[in-house]
C-alpha cells in the first residue's frame, strides 16, 4: 500500500499548541503545589512565586495533625469506589435495556431519566435528608453511596454507547443461535462496552471523591468525614491560610493522581478503543 509521504511529519506549531494546552492543564495544579510548599505571604506577593519552596513536609504534617486525614482518605475511597463500581454495574444493565431491549414504557422511562438531569438538585437536599433520616442512615457512608448510584448521566452515556457500538444484527444472530437475554448481555454486549463502563465508573469515582455539599450535610462525626470535608476544616472563613489550605487540597488530590497514573492510560485507551464506531 503506497501512501503519500506529505503528511507524515508533525508540524512544529502542532506541538506548540498541544504544549500550550498541556501547560494550561497542569499549571493550576502545579501552582497549588507551589503554594503548598511556601506560605501565604510568599504566595500572594508580586512578582508571583512559581518555584516550590521547602515547606511541604511541615505543612503536610500540620494537615495530618489538624484533621483526621488518613481516616478521611479511607472513607473517601470506600464511598467513591462503591459509587464507581455501582454506577458501572447499574448503568450498564439499564443502559443495555434501554438501548437493545424492547418493553412497554421504554421511551417514556428514558425520557423521565434524561429530564431529571435538567433540574437543579440543590433544593432536593431536604427531602433527600428526610429519606436518609428515616432510614437511620444519617452520619453513615451508605447515605453517600446509595443515592450516588443512580446517575442519570450514566444511563444516558451507556445507552448511547450500546446504541452506537453494537449493531442489532449481531444480537439477532445470537438470538437465532438460541441465546437468552442474559447471555447476550453478558457474553456479547457488555464486553464490547466494557471500556465505556470502565470510564463511567472512573468518572463516578472522581465526582464522588470531589463532592462536598451533600457529604457535609450528612456526615457529622469527624471519623466519618470524607477527604473534602477534612480539608474544608483547614479553611477559616475569615482568613485563609493559603499554604495550609493548598497543602490539604494537594494531599487530597494525590490519591486521584496516583490512580490516574496507573489507570489513566487504560482509561484513555478505553475511550479510544470502544467509542462510537460506525
Amino acid at each position: 500500500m503506497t501512501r503519500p509521504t506529505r503528511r507524515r511529519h508533525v508540524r512544529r506549531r502542532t506541538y506548540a499548541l498541544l504544549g500550550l494546552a498541556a501547560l494550561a492543564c497542569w499549571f493550576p495544579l502545579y501552582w497549588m503545589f507551589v503554594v503548598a510548599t511556601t506560605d501565604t505571604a510568599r504566595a500572594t506577593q508580586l512578582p508571583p512565586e512559581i518555584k516550590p519552596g521547602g515547606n511541604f513536609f511541615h505543612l503536610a504534617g500540620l494537615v495530618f495533625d489538624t484533621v483526621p486525614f488518613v481516616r478521611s482518605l479511607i472513607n473517601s475511597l470506600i464511598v467513591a469506589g462503591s459509587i464507581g463500581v455501582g454506577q458501572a454495574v447499574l448503568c450498564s444493565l439499564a443502559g443495555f435495556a434501554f438501548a437493545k431491549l424492547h418493553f412497554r414504557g421504554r421511551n417514556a422511562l428514558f425520557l423521565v431519566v434524561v429530564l431529571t438531569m435538567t433540574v437543579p438538585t440543590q433544593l432536593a437536599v431536604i427531602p433527600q435528608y428526610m429519606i436518609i433520616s428515616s432510614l437511620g442512615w444519617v452520619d453513615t457512608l451508605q447515605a453517600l453511596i446509595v443515592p450516588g448510584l443512580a446517575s442519570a448521566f450514566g444511563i444516558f452515556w451507556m445507552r448511547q454507547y450500546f446504541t452506537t457500538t453494537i449493531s442489532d444484527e449481531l444480537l439477532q444472530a445470537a438470538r437465532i443461535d438460541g441465546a437468552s437475554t442474559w447471555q447476550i448481555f453478558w457474553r456479547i454486549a457488555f464486553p464490547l462496552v466494557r471500556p465505556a463502563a470502565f470510564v463511567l465508573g472512573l468518572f463516578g469515582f472522581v465526582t464522588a471523591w470531589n463532592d462536598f455539599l451533600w457529604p457535609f450535610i450528612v456526615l457529622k462525626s469527624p471519623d466519618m468525614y470524607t477527604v473534602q470535608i477534612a480539608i474544608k476544616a483547614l479553611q477559616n472563613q475569615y482568613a485563609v491560610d493559603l499554604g495550609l489550605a493548598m497543602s490539604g487540597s494537594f494531599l487530597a488530590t494525590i490519591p486521584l493522581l496516583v490512580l490516574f497514573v496507573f489507570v489513566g492510560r487504560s482509561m484513555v485507551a478505553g475511550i479510544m478503543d470502544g467509542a462510537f464506531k460506525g
Partner: protein
Amino acid sequence: MLTISFHPETFGDPEPYGRNTVKFRIATSVVLAATLALAAAACSSNDNASTGDNKSIEFWSFTGINQKAQVDDYKKLHPGIDIKLTEVGSSVETAQALTTALAGGKVPDLVLIQGDDLPKFVQQPQNFVDLRTLGADKVKGDYLDWVISQSIAKDGQILGVPTDVGGMAVAYRTDLFAKAGLPTDRDAVGKLWPTWDAFIEAGKKYVAATGKPFVDNAATSVFYQAVNQGPEKYYDTAGNLVYDQSPQVKTAFDLGLKAVAAGISAKQSSFATGWSAGMGPGQFAVVAAPSWMLNAIRTNAPGTKGKWDIATIPGGAGNWGGSYLAIPKNAKNPKAAWDYIAETQSPKGQLAHFVASGSLPTTPSVYKDAQLTSLKDPFFSDAPTGTIYTDSLLGLKPFYIGPDSSAIGQEFQNAITNVEQGKGDPATAWDTALKNIKAAIGK
C-alpha cells in the same frame, strides 16, 4: 460497518436457560448487596452518637471560633461525657446544615449559630428547646441585655445563649502611620478621629502623604460600623421597619459615600482574596476590626507582627458579630447540652475562653476582672484588647434587630460597594439600595 465478528463458539456449551436467568438475578442482587454490605461494614465503626442517656453531646460548630478549646477543657473536667464536635465550614454553611436537619430529621444536641443567621431561626421558635425550661431564666441576667434579647422569641422563649460578641475598634499599621507622619500611639490615634468626618480627614492626609489607600473598604469599615452607633437602626423600638426613614441610617450611608469620594478606600471587600493578600504588603493601613478579626489579621499577615496597634473607633462604640448556642427541639440529650452551656458560658467560663482564644465575653460582670484588663496582645503592640473592646460595648445604645436586618444591611453595603468600584452613581445609590431592599424582603 460491522467491525466485530460473531463466532458461535463464544457460547461454548449452551447451558439450560432456567439456570442462566436465575443466575443473572442472583448475580445482580449479590452485586447490590455487596455494595451495601461493604458500605455497612465500613460504617460499623460509627458508634451511635446520641443515645439519649445524657452522657454524650453532638455539637455542630463552625470554623474561626475555636470551640474546640472549650470542648476539650470541658471533657477534661467531665470525663464521663463524650462530646462529638463538628467544626467544619463557615457559619453560613453550618446554618444551612442546621436548616436541613431541622426540616428533615436527625438534629444535633447543640449547635452554634452566628448572629447574622439567628433571626430567621428565632422567628420559628418551635424548632428549638425553650431554654427557660432548663434553667435559662436564672442566668439570663449574666449577659448583656441587648445581646441576649436577640435570641428571645416573641413569646419570651429564650432560644440561645450568647457565647461572644465582637465589639469594635480600629486596627492600624503603626509603621505605615509613622511613614505618613501620623501619630502612632493608640491614645493619640484615638483622639485623631473622634468622629467619622475626622476619620475621613485623617485618611485624606494619609493618602496625600503616601499615595496609598487608607482604609480597606468604605462599605464595611465605614458604613457598617457607623450605622451601628445610633439608638435605632433598621427597625424602631416597636419592631416596625424604618430603614428608609431613619436619619441615622441615611447619615451612615452618606458617610460611606463620602469616604469613597475622598479616595481613601483600597476597594477590597472584606474577606476576599485580595483583602487577605493585601494585608501584609500594607495595601491599606486601617481596618475596622472586631475582636475576632484580630485572628484573621494574624493569619493573613504573619510577617507584620508588632506592626499593628488598636485604637478606638470613631463614634466610640460598636459591635460586629457574636454567636449563640442553641438546642434543637428533638435533641436526644438536651440536659447534657444545657449542662455544657451553663458551665462554659457562665461568666467564669467566658472569661477563661477569652484568655485562651480572645473571644470577647458577653457577661459584663467580668469586664473589670484583672485577667481581662491585663491581657495584652504582642502582635498588636501589646494593646490591652480586653479593655478596648469591652469599652466599645458599654458605649453601645441598644437597637432593635429584626429578621430582615441582615438582608437590609447587605443591600446597603452592596450599593456603596458598587459606587466604590466605580460602577454606581453616588447620586442614585440610596434609591437603588431602597429598591433592592424592597425586592429582597418584599416590604
